[in-house]
């Protein structure tokens, strides 16, 4: 009888041969998480090397065995059964047999729980995506409908508006955004004035820097920049807030308490946004004009008076109203899509993340799209 021994951290083993190509493994010590990986590797090498007809594992001297130990036995058994060979255990003490029995060692079938669901065929995926988008569209429309109904309801019964929520939302969306909107617009005005002054100077048309900055800001850039900042700050926040309420069943709670979730959550956000975003836009215009003014005074030798006079001469009331009107529409879009994405959340935390991303991306897309539509309409109107 030949014997081999090996050492595996807190456990060692001994191999003896028992006629007719069978071998016995005498394991001694602990079989637990600390040495399971090495043991599996060693035993599989052993089986591969010697190709035994049968393998017996002797557990007499095993002092501790847990499910990692059981795993070693299962894996060894699997290796043996690959070649239709015999495997058995010997001298299993009480404690080990208790562990093996609660783990259903005997019946533990060989299979792979990580059977990843195979991705379905392309046509099926195409169909599923279509259906998904169609139902998305349906939800979008029904949400739009319920928002309109709730808005109508609030217009008819102004008392039903949640006033405190609306004011809080106005503060979060508007007042708190003022510093960043102001800073970005100021820098934008500065840069625009600076870049254009280089060109206009060649024609001695310095004074038109004021026209350029004020007109482009009030009509186009002011509303767009403000809307994009609000989409990033507040649109995402709406989606995350409502999404989290959805997965923690707070929306369901509102519903069963007899509140209309749309009226309760969405309307305050929409109304607050429609009020504060145009105001933010006006601030943005002013800050950009101040930025232009700074450049005008410092690098173009214009007087403040001349700059401001030129600005006033350029702008018409219509330009300002147009910018304000556009930003009101953008505000509606941002709040609507943010809340919509929030309500579309299903499942867990990662879904909230997706909704937030999607809220910002969709808002920016819609802002640009609607801005283009406005441009086309104005082109033929004026």
């Amino acid at each position: 009888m030949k014997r081999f021994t090996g050492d595996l951290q807190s456990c060692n083993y001994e191999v003896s041969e028992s006629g007719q190509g069978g071998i016995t493994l005498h394991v001694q010590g602990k079989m637990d998480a600390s040495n399971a990986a090495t043991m599996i590797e060693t035993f599989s090498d052993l089986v591969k090397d010697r190709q035994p007809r049968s393998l017996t594992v002797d557990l007499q001297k095993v002092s501790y065995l847990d499910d990692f130990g059981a795993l070693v036995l299962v894996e060894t058994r699997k290796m043996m059964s690959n070649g239709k060979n015999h495997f058995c255990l010997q001298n299993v003490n009480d404690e080990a047999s208790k562990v093996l029995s609660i783990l259903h060692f005997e019946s533990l079938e060989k299979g792979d729980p990580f059977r990843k669901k195979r991705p379905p065929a392309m046509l099926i995926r195409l169909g599923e995506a279509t259906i998904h988008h169609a139902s998305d569209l349906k939800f979008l429309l029904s949400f739009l409908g319920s928002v309109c109904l709730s808005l109508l309801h609030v217009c008819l019964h102004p008392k039903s508006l949640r006033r405190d929520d609306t004011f809080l939302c106005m503060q979060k969306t508007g007042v708190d955004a003022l510093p960043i909107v102001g800073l970005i617009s100021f820098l934008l005005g500065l840069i625009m004035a600076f870049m254009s002054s280089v060109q206009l100077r060649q024609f001695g048309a310095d004074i038109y820097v004021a026209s350029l900055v004020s007109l482009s800001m009030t009509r186009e850039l002011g509303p767009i920049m403000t809307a994009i900042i609000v989409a990033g700050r507040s649109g995402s926040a709406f989606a995350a807030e409502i999404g989290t309420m959805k997965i923690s069943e707070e929306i369901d709670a509102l519903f069963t308490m007899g509140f209309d979730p749309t009226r309760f959550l969405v309307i305050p956000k929409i109304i607050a946004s429609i009020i504060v975003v145009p105001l933010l836009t006006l601030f943005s215009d002013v800050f950009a004009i101040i930025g232009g003014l700074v450049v005008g005074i410092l690098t173009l030798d214009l007087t403040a008076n001349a700059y401001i006079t030129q600005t006033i001469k350029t702008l018409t009331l219509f330009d300002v109203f147009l910018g304000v009107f556009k930003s009101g529409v953008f505000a509606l879009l941002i709040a609507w899509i943010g809340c919509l994405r929030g309500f579309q959340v299903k499942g867990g935390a990662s879904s909230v993340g997706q909704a937030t991303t999607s809220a910002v991306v969709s808002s920016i897309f819609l802002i640009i799209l609607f801005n283009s539509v406005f441009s086309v309409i104005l082109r033929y109107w004026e």
Partner: protein
Amino acid sequence: MARQAVIQVRDLVARYGEDIIFDRVSFDVYEGEIFVVLGGSGCGKSTLLKHLVGLISPDSGQVIIGGDDISRCDDATFQNVLKKIGVLYQGAALFGSMTLSENVALPIIEYTDLPQRSVATLVRMKLGLVDLDGYENHLPSEISGGMKKRAGLARAMALNPKILFFDEPSAGLDPVTSAELDNLIVHLNRSFGTTIVIVTHELQSIFAVAHRVIMLDKHARGIIAEGDPEYLRDHSQNPFVRQFFNRQTKKNRDGTEEK
């Protein structure tokens, strides 16, 4: 024979801002026992548990797990202590974007060198242990509350920790499921010798599983009773403790019931 204490708490003081939740609490948890922390709602059971697993550092005092003072030891030692413990949170805290088997496999893959196939088998064993065979590929949002608890337990046990902590394991479960969970706890304790610390106020669970209990009280800001639950029920000096175990309402001094 003196048993070995695996958790030693010494003069632990916990506070949130100005509120002192408990003041100079000391107790030991011995190896291989099922230790229950009980008390009324809001008396600081969850707070105590968070101190025991190192989520909150104590205001003063020590929590010693397996010889290491977890509030003062260095990071490497603390990481080692963390490998010795498993926690089942009140809401199971499964990762929602992963299937049950991925949840359970996560610590196994990160902390052991087992080959992928063996991990799969081990995960199946762990889930089988908590009677979740066949749910390997379900997402946490697709299973019931009791099943989530069991899956959370399977994940907490993934590396066979020496100590398992449970925060209100039976909260939100029906009596049958909750009794099954109790059985599972006793089973784990017997088969693997795991030390188990449970926070609960579920009387039936306490009598079913506890070897030893401590009872916290909001007004005393500390432990008002310690020992065998059945003994405390019948023989405690403190009338409030007896009331708690006998499920009576608060009595006034003259014996009339409080309105």
